[in-house]
């Protein structure tokens, strides 16, 4: 699409390795994938050079072997850049982006609670959104999780056990 | 002996005050509701509420001081009802008259405010604690202008006794209109004393639940509510006697009617103020009382002193 070209061109010239994955779905919607190793630098590039500096949403996905994360970034003119990256489940840990986008805090906590992804560098704080007495090691948004698991690993009953 | 007992217990004493207080609450609620395009309660609602609260379970917080927690509502009720006995109703003489009883009434009317503070303090609850702090802070801001405003008419009359103030203005035609500034100040300050919008800061529902009364339930809360209603009536009667000193020598029936009309007028004013304003913040309240109300009350006193000096010459 015409009006997205400047951004796509910029990405292509700065990060030729991701050129393959760029997909312009329709006006104002750009999708792309990037290796986690390059991700952080790209995010800074997107925020400063591409001007897509508004953090909208962080989606966590359970992709069988990997955990994928889509960072939905917007700019002031309605363009939405969706940056997908992934880490293997065996090493489910990503670095926080709250130093750049404080708005990401709750959504990163959500990843910890619901997918069991460790977020490095996220300051200590209240858990979100599961209840305090939720059993350890149960991550409801994983594909292999269902309600029956709570029968084996029920909600905690004592207040002392809860991690607030 | 029996006659004075009847006077204390029935008319114009406690029973009359009780009925008048409930009627005042009804008038206030109904007016407030009608001005908000609601229908409002039926006439017996305040009484029904009172009876219902009396029959409710009483819960006292574990950490609260049980004796004081129980005594305070009764102290508040007794104080406001006692204050009413000193205010003239249909004749210039109040039930118990002595020199300087205007000052005495103002002081007795301060007691319930102190019990609200103590009630919050001894409830040992966070919301009550903050509420009681606010009660005290608020008292320090409205009490001074209220005192000055209520005493100002007495300066012209050279007396702070109800009967003498009434007699003085009664002989001077429409001279009482001169006190209109202090009347306005007094009405606003009374709004603060009664803890109603815009000065309902100590019990701001959306901030600190019910302020000092958060932990009060059942009968004890009923007494507190009754105390507040009697306080409304007593304060209105006080303002009526001091600022509208007419119609006291017209006999029993006419006297009562005029008295009730005056009370009703003041309740209407209070209800209108309640309807058209939002609650202000503590710091704004303190600022307002000291910056506007106190100078205005001082101005009234100054005017009265000048007039008195001019008349003496």
């Amino acid at each position: 699409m015409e009006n997205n070209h400047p951004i796509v061109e910029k990405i292509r010239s700065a990060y030729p390795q991701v050129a393959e994955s760029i997909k312009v779905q329709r006006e104002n919607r750009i999708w792309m994938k990037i290796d986690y190793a390059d991700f952080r630098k790209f995010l800074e590039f997107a925020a400063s050079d591409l001007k897509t500096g508004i953090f909208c949403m962080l989606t966590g996905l359970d992709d069988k072997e990997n955990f994928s994360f889509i960072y939905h970034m917007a700019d002031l003119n309605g363009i939405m850049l969706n940056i997908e990256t992934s880490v293997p489940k065996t090493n489910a840990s990503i670095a926080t982006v709250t130093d750049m986008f404080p708005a990401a805090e709750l959504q990163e906590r959500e990843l910890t609670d619901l997918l069991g992804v460790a977020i490095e560098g996220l300051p200590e704080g209240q858990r979100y959104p599961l209840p305090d007495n939720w059993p350890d090691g149960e991550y409801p948004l994983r594909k292999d999780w269902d309600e029956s698991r709570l029968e084996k690993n029920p909600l905690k009953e004592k207040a002392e056990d809860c991690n607030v | 002996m029996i006659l004075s007992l009847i006077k204390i217990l029935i008319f114009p004493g406690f029973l009359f005050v009780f009925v008048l207080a409930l009627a005042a609450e009804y008038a206030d609620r109904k007016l407030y509701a009608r001005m908000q395009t609601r229908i409002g309660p039926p006439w017996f609602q305040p009484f029904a509420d009172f009876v219902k609260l009396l029959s409710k379970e009483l819960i006292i917080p574990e950490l609260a001081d049980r004796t004081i927690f129980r005594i305070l509502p009764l102290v508040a009720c007794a104080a406001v009802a006692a204050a009413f006995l000193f205010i003239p109703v249909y004749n210039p003489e109040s039930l118990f008259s002595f020199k300087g009883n205007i000052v005495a009434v103002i002081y007795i009317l301060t007691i319930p405010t102190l019990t609200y503070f103590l009630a919050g303090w001894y409830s040992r609850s966070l919301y009550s604690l903050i509420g009681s702090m606010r009660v005290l802070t608020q008292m320090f801001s409205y009490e001074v202008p209220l005192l000055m405003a209520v005493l100002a008419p007495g300066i012209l009359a050279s007396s702070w006794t109800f009967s003498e103030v009434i007699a003085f203005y009664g002989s001077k035609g429409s001279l009482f209109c001169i006190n209109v500034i202090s009347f306005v100040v007094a009405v606003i300050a009374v709004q603060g004393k009664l803890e109603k919008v815009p000065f309902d800061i100590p019990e701001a529902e959306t901030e600190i639940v019910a302020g000092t009364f958060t932990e009060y339930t059942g009968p004890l809360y009923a007494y507190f509510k009754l105390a507040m209603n009697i306080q409304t009536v007593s304060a209105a009667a006080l303002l009526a006697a001091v600022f509208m000193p007419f119609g006291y020598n017209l006999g029993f029936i006419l006297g009562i009617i005029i008295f009730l009309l005056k009370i009703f007028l003041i309740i209407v004013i209070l209800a209108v103020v309640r309807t058209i304003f939002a609650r202000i913040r503590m710091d704004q309240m303190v600022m307002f009382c000291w910056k506007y109300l106190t100078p205005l009350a001082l101005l009234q006193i100054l005017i009265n002193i000048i007039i008195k000096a001019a008349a003496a010459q």
Partner: protein
Amino acid sequence: MSKKLVIPIGPQHPALKEPASFDVTLQGEKVENILVKLGYNHRGIEKACESKPYLHDLYLIERVCGICSHSHATCFLQAVEEIAGLNIPMRAKYIRSLIGEMERIHSHLLWLGVAAHEIGFDTLLMYTWRDREIIMDLLALLTGNRVNYAVNVLGGVRKDISEEEKGQILKAMDVLEERTKYYAHVTTEEITIKKRLSKVGYLSPEDAVKMGAVGPTGRASKIKRDIRAEDKYAAYGEVDFKVVSDDNCDVYGRALVRVGELMEAYSIIRQLIKKLPDTPLKVPAPLKIPAGEAISRYEAPRGEDVHYVRANGTDKPERVKLRAPTLANVQAVSTMLKKGYLADVTIVIAAIDPCFSCTDRMIIAVDGKSEMTWKQLREHSINWYKKNRGVDFTKVKLGMKE
């Protein structure tokens, strides 16, 4: 006062209509710190969506929130329709926008009342909520429901708007416009409102971007962002409206923006009614949605609503993720409350128009242990009263079948 007080506002508090917890650390009457805890309304909607067909998800998503039900449903459908490549007829788009704007009106009027209540101005609450009934009745007339309108279906809308209904809408708009002008007058002229709202909950434009404030909260801080203008979804590309913003950056600004948006909404609805094109209401939609992904944005009354849907070729989505506007705005609350007063806490919280059930979503009640049947609950209460109060309620008969 040297000792610090920590005042819990929530999870249950008269100022909050929904459970959320704000622990306010006080120094005297001043706020020193605020700790936000959310998650009390977590119902598992995202997980539940993965196990249900799209058709059911639509109704589930609608129940994410009581006030902006149409927003969430439309936002979700837009994503699904984009994946399926459905071309929605214009009339359907118009009707979606129309209901969306009416929802905005009812939400903003509700907010105005709630905000007035928070600052102890109950008269305004009674007035606005009375007028809100007009729009609620209108919504009931058009869709059959006061909330959860369920007017959307995959591929269009389910209900048309007749000529007679058009007239009723226009008539209601005139009444509401008149009333809103009065409220605009009240909020700008009434002195105690101004005193309580201005300079309260200040959020600088820089902080607004950093904390991700959206919708009226952001627009009151000079951020002129409105998804209706940026993305031109539904029929918003075909109507004229201006993005209302304000440079007060405080609660007062947020109130002005909402009142301004009310006026815009009336004008948008009039234009939509006037231009309503004559096309079919819906296109046939497949049950199985081809694999793909889409992101959809929607300007809900409270701000930008974002839905992400990934489809895997079956009739159930692979992943549904949604971000309600409150999630973006609530993080700015602690910034707004720095150095504020306790009295301001509730109005500042209310000023972002929080909707915690939108925010939290997720987790279906599944655990057998803490869930009680009616009988168990009754037994428990009888035992409790016997033990703690010495009252025996065993003989009390219930007015229903056991």
